[in-house]
């Protein structure tokens, strides 16, 4: 399972496990996530809610909810282990190396601070010396995100922004940190259709203009396939299949990926159908395949042996007993 020595990847997750202690017992949202992101590329992760997408992003930044902890695996940034960073190093790593855009744009902004103050603070926190005046930087940042009148926006407070505006401010905030990797947690979910497209385009352009990498998660395969060159499918706390967009969309190998693609016909705008069966409960740890109860290709071996990892070349990976190209 180990990804071996550094191979130029920005970020390498190997077998990351997260457990959260709740009142009703432990929950295991991540059960061995493997993932690599290379400089400048865009990776999209798709999965149902509860599949561990958001938790994957949080484990990259080591931002755990109360009672939560990374209990296994490694997170590597270039060739350093993120899990071994002390709090000062972690502070430098967050923002300056990896920044995040949150799902709910309005609640991700401090309601008591002006837009300007928030951008300026994020900027200052990540530049030790700079000949740029932070306030001017903030104005330019907003202009980059196509705000017609940045000066007026700078003095506004979050509650005075529409959802789309707030999300653009969030993108400006993440970019203001100057990261090499941007994590986007369903950044367009709460927005209406036209705004979604606009925000996604803007995000894509601004990220590529800065040569940053983007790790984008969504339950919406359509949004992910629009932005990402590489697509990973998550199920029950694992990335079950990952590879280049074209390959995943046209010839998926994992039964779950297939089912997902059948549900969402990318050529039409019809409502996605659902996959029969129930999403597995994450209160359990799954040694065997967690999808086998819903799987139409279930075999005897699925009930006996843990999942094998197939490296298919071209950065394609698959977690399934069936193996690749199983018809």
């Amino acid at each position, binding site marked *: 399972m180990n990804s071996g020595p550094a191979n130029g990847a920005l970020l390498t997750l190997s077998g990351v496990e997260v457990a959260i*202690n709740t*009142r009703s017992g432990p929950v295991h949202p991540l059960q061995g996530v493997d993932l690599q992101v290379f400089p400048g590329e865009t990776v999209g992760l798709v999965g149902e809610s509860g599949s561990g997408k958001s938790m994957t992003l949080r484990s990259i930044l*080591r*931002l755990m909810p*109360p009672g939560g*902890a990374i209990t296994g695996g490694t997170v590597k940034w270039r060739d350093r282990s993120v899990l071994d960073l002390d709090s000062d190093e*972690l502070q430098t790593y967050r923002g300056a190396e990896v920044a995040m855009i949150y799902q709910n744009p309005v609640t991700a902004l401090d309601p008591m601070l002006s837009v300007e103050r928030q951008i300026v603070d994020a900027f200052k926190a990540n530049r030790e010396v700079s000949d740029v005046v932070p306030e001017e930087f903030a104005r330019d940042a907003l202009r980059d995100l196509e705000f017609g009148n940045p000066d007026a926006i700078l003095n506004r407070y979050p509650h005075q922004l529409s959802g789309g505006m707030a999300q653009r401010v969030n993108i400006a905030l993440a970019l203001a940190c100057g990261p090499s990797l941007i994590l986007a947690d369903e950044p367009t979910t709460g927005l209406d259709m036209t705004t979604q497209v606009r925000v996604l385009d803007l995000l894509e352009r601004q990220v590529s203009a800065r040569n940053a990498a983007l790790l984008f998660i969504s339950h919406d395969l359509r949004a992910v396939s629009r932005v990402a060159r590489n697509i990973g499918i998550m199920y029950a706390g694992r990335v079950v299949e990952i590879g280049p967009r074209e390959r995943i969309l046209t010839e998926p190998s994992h039964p779950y990926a297939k089912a997902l693609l059948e549900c969402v016909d990318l050529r039409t705008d019809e409502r996605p159908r659902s996959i029969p069966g129930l999403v597995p409960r994450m209160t359990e740890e799954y040694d065997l395949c967690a999808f086998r109860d819903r799987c139409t290709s279930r075999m005897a071996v699925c009930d006996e042996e843990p999942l094998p990892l197939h490296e298919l070349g071209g950065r394609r990976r698959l977690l399934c007993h069936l193996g690749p190209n199983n018809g």
Partner: protein
Amino acid sequence: MTTISPQRERRVLARTLVGPTAGITIRRSLFFFMLFLAVIGPWIETIGQWIPIPVYDPLRPDPFNPVSPPSAEHWFGTDTLGLDIFTRVIVATRVDFTLALIGVMLGGGLGCLAGAWSAYRRGWVDMIALRIVEVVQSFPVLLLGLALFAALGPLDIFGPVDHGMAVLVIAIAMVNFPLYLRQVRSVLLPLTEAEFVQAAKCAGLGAWGIVWNHFIPNARGQILALFPLTCAYAIQIIAGLSFIGLGIEPPNPEWGSMIKTGATLIVQGHWWVSVFPGAFIVLSVYSLTGFSARSETLVGPGGTSA
């Protein structure tokens, strides 16, 4: 959000949650013990004849035995008149509990109805209800009691009912009215537009019918959570007013007035006269608050700074 090392994180994981259940159980048993005392209070002398516990007539002075410290004969000692504090503290349990209960039920009941009505009608009715709440809550609780005693003092309106007790009950009711009104209103306000309420309206159920059949049951949980807290609070108010000589007057046994008796003695070292009745107040309030699942306090003007 915490940023702690993996080792530390694992230790946090290993730590299991110890719920507050143990403490709560003790407090509830304590409450039932207090309730038991309240029930047997008036017959304590009779009971004392059967079991070897030294109890006396709570109202008969013993001039030869004033201010005697706790002993085998007088477990909690005696006061200036030689009255047995142990007996009186137990007898007073019923007095304080009953007055608190009547006052809370009266004020709380009216408050619930008014709150439900206010949530149902909204608009002007709701506005007026809220203003009434604000006005009543602007008066500090004890001063409200004081004002009531001042206003009702010269009047003889309660007939055979003890005047002091009646005013105490009214004071408690006045304090509780806005508390319940607010609570019920805030629970029910979102329900006004709920489908089942609309359905009931369509079915031709009258306003009071809807309030009674649909609103009150929905607020039941909140009301029940508030009830023990307000009773505890009421006990403190009763004791506080009696402490300044309003309400229940000596020699009738009541915790607050017993503390008052002991207040002048405590600096001479005769601590038992005040300490035991006070301890019973603490036990009652503590055991009552154990009944609310979350350890809430009545915040602000309803605060417990009596």
